[in-house]
């Protein structure tokens, strides 16, 4: 160890250069580890912190004793808590207000939320808890005053976190909690209050199916509005940001792979530069193992402090934005738990560095000692290249001379470029989802509030081509009640109104047939010709024949398109807005005004998640930023690859300069070297994106629907142009560095 430290002290400049590469790589790994770990585990941490129930059920208001009597009979249930949820309540604080607030009246027992600031609701009067998202968005602190319609001014006792939805303002409704005692103080205490939310904790969450099966007869007769399992919650949150989380994790892996390759290449170059020294050590009697061990130790000693610094800096850089994103999703930052993955990343980095130094040392010391003493680190080729003497082609040959390194660079860059293509494709898709309902096959432009008796009047409005009632019914698969799904039902043919692309099978033709979204088809293994047994939240089981599988994004692709006739038999009051398709060329604004004149309130139809329009825009921006960041990693990788090539071929470049080659000629040569890496990397990336990453991420992001995640012409042009620019910048930078040193130095001058 002492010998190694002495050795390193004598090579300060090289040590510093290696340390800087390690620092840059560790920074990227620190960022990616932090982002990846924080996002991948944020939900579970939040669920634990908030004591999330295994099932959250919303009913029409009912006496607590009546509901409790039914739920107590359920198997596998260990604890039940109740709340009264009051919606469309006025909330005002800190100069902000809304009429769309939700007040949860907490009736004791386990809370189902975690208190992240201040204290929980207790016996003190005049206190309220606010959701973390509300506190953040409105700038509220513990001790501030919040005015609640009907309850007046209350003091904020604490900030609560619950994970049954994404956070306000991503979720449209700001939520606060007050105790039942507080409500009792204002309106009189009730012995048997009315509740509409039940939280259930199970003894064995793995046996959720059994509990839900028993719940069906137990709650028969109660109007159930929502039955939300942990898995369902997770899906809802993933629906909001699953694409981004998955891609950020992919980005983390790509950045880590690029950093690892950069480190290994740098360590490799350092060892090969010292080939003659290794020869001397071998000549003096050092064994191969000793030489290899020394090289690995040297590399680790250089990398250890730089990697620690880089990882720390990367983690500090990333934790802020990651925490903000987690806050949007009602999830929790990792805190000290991040230390474990960072420690693993640190170990991994040092292992890569050690291997990156040991392997080339092992390879180099296989050569005869006499050859090593001559100092050549490249075996002289015995085959002539066909490229001739053009500088660009010679540069290409230089770049490919080290097959292993060249292949490594091509693969690393290819993966990075494929990720950029993918990220851009998803960003484009998000914008399309935001702006263009047609992306989802949605053809109706307006929805109108009304019932089926209004249909003739709506159809008579000028500019209206077709109108039909669109009903949505929350349901579950009868055989797997943990698989929630949404039925979208029309009285007639749904295709004029929404025609999600058919993936297989055909369109439905009768009330006994359905088309299913591919998210549901994947989850339940459904295919055309199969049978779907539905359990609507209210109503009896219905069975349908599956005739088609469609690509759908709504509700993660867990949708069923059906005719409404069979549902109406169970619930004649089944309602929903009227979907309106416009005549070709009709102006949406004109039709809206004509509908208003006829007494109908209409609104424009948007993409999949009208309430999340701004968030979709933010996600697209984040993704494009990520693409830019990966692009910068590509630039760093190609710059380093060219720098290594220029360093390896220092003497050849000096020789060209001695013969009168200008910086432009060296630039052309190094440009050829860059092209030799970038062009195959681009080809590899296109194949990888189209054949592997696109399909995988489409499924990953969707659990969803299989989305056509292929880059468009603009995306390809941007990536191609970016690569050309990166190659040019890298070539010019390497040429500039190469021409900085005196030609004589490059020729390996020995003063004599």
């Amino acid at each position, binding site marked *: 160890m002492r010998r190694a430290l002495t050795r390193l002290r004598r090579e300060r400049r090289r040590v510093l250069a290696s340390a800087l590469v390690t620092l840059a790589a560790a920074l990227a790994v620190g960022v990616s580890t932090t982002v990846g770990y924080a996002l991948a585990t944020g939900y579970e941490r939040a669920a634990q912190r908030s004591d999330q129930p295994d099932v959250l059920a919303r009913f029409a208001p009912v006496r607590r004793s009546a509901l409790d009597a039914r739920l107590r009979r359920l198997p596998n249930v260990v604890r039940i808590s109740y709340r009264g949820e009051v919606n469309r309540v006025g909330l005002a604080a800190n100069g902000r207000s809304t009429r769309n607030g939700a007040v949860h009246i907490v009736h004791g027992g386990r809370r189902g939320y975690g208190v992240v600031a201040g204290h929980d609701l207790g016996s003190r009067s005049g206190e309220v808890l606010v959701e973390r998202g509300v506190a953040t968005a409105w700038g509220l602190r513990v001790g501030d005053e919040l005015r609640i319609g009907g309850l007046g001014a209350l003091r904020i006792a604490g900030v609560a976190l619950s994970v049954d939805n994404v956070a306000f303002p991503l979720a449209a409704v700001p939520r606060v909690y007050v105790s039942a005692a507080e409500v009792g103080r204002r309106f009189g205490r009730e012995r048997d209050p009315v509740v509409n939310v039940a939280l259930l904790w199970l003894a064995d969450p793995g046996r959720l199916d059994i509990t839900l099966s028993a719940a069906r007869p137990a709650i028969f007769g109660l109007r159930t509005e929502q039955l939300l399992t942990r898995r369902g919650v997770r899906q809802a949150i993933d629906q909001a940001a699953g694409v981004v989380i998955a891609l950020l994790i992919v980005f983390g892996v790509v950045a880590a792979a690029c950093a690892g390759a950069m480190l290994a290449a740098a360590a490799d170059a350092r060892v090969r530069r010292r080939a003659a020294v290794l020869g001397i050590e071998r000549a003096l009697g050092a064994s191969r193992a000793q030489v290899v061990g020394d090289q690995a130790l040297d590399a680790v000693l250089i990398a250890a402090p730089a990697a620690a610094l880089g990882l720390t800096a990367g983690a500090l850089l990333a934790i802020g934005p990651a925490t903000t994103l987690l806050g949007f999703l009602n999830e929790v930052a990792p805190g000290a738990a991040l230390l474990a993955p960072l420690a693993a990343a640190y170990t991994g980095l040092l292992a890569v560095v050690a291997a990156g130094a040991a392997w080339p040392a092992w390879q180099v010391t296989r050569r005869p000692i006499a050859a090593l003493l001559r100092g050549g680190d490249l075996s002289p*080729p015995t085959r*002539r290249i066909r490229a001739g003497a*053009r500088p660009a082609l*010679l540069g290409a040959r230089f770049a490919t*001379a080290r097959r292993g390194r060249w292949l490594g660079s091509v693969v690393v860059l290819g993966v990075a470029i494929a990720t950029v293509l993918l990220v851009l494709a998803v960003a484009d898709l998000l914008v399309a989802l935001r702006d263009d309902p047609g992306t989802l096959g949605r053809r109706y432009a307006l929805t109108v509030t009304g019932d089926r008796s209004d249909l003739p009047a709506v159809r008579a409005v000028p500019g209206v081509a077709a109108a039909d009632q669109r009903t949505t019914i929350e349901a579950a698969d009868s055989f797997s009640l943990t698989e929630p799904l949404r039925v979208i039902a029309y009285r007639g043919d749904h295709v004029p109104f929404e025609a999600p692309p058919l993936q297989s099978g055909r369109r439905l033709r009768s009330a006994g047939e359905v088309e299913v979204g591919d998210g549901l088809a994947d989850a339940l293994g459904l295919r055309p010709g199969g049978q779907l047994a539905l359990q609507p939240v209210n109503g009896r089981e219905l069975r349908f024949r599956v005739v088609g599988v469609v690509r759908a994004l709504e509700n993660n692709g867990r949708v069923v398109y059906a005719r409404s006739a069979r549902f109406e038999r169970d619930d004649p009051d089944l309602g929903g807005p009227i979907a309106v398709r416009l005549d070709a060329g009709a102006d949406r604004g004109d039709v809206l005004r004509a509908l208003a004149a006829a007494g109908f309130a209409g609104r424009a139809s948007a993409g999949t998640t009208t309430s999340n329009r701004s968030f979709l825009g933010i996600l697209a921006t984040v993704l494009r930023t990520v693409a830019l960041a990966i692009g910068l990693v590509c630039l760093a990788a190609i710059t380093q690859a060219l720098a290594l090539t220029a360093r390896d071929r220092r003497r050849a470049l000096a020789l060209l*300069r*001695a013969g*009168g080659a200008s910086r432009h000629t060296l630039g052309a040569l190094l440009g050829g070297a860059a092209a030799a890496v970038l062009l195959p990397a681009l080809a590899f990336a296109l194949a990888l994106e189209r054949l592997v990453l696109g399909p995988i991420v489409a499924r990953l992001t969707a659990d969803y629907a299989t989305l056509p995640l292929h880059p468009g012409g603009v995306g390809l042009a941007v990536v191609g142009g970016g690569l050309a620019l990166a190659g040019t910048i890298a070539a010019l930078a390497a040429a500039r560095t190469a021409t900085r040193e005196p030609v004589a130095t490059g020729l390996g001058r*020995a003063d004599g």
Partner: protein
Amino acid sequence: MGVLTALLRVRGLTKTVGQGRAARRVLDRVELDVQAGELVAVVGSSGSGKSTLLHLAGGLDRADAGTIELAGERLDGRSERVLARLRARHVGFVFQAFHLVPELSGEENVRLAARFGAHGAQAPARVAALVDALGLRPVARSVPAQLSGGEQQRFAIARALVNDPALVLADEPTGNLDAESGAVVLALLRAATRDGRAVLVVTHDAAVTASADRVVTLRDGRLLCGER
């Protein structure tokens, strides 16, 4: 010898290498003229500054003080771009270790250098003529690893001559060769002077000094002139 003109004129050339306590003056106010058509040998012990003088004369390195004039053009204080142009037009280098690009054939190494010269469309013919003249045609398509030392050095000389330089700078051109190959190389360098070129050779080889028009000795960075 024909009419002699001072092709290379060196005045007060000084160069120090290293820094601080490790600093060492390898050239100390060196003065040297080399005429067109002249073969000058530079001798001296190891570390006396021979190769440094050669590199400075060819614009491969920069002096601390003094002036260098090559074919009427000053090298000192010029930009790297101008130096590159002057090297391409006026200077050819021959190195002890040949320094051929290992992936290119011998002929392609010559062709590579021709790209930087002024022969333009005539360059391929000039390359072929040189390769033939130096008796290298049978091995023209071989890569350096397949060539003998003498063949490699002959290709290096062809490369040095391909752009018709006025000055050929050779750093121990026979140092890695046996006596027979060394004699061939020396003959080629000698022949180069007949076209009016100047050749400045750094050497330890007695055969080279014996063949030179003039031998100069460097000692402790100072040039001791000798005339043959």
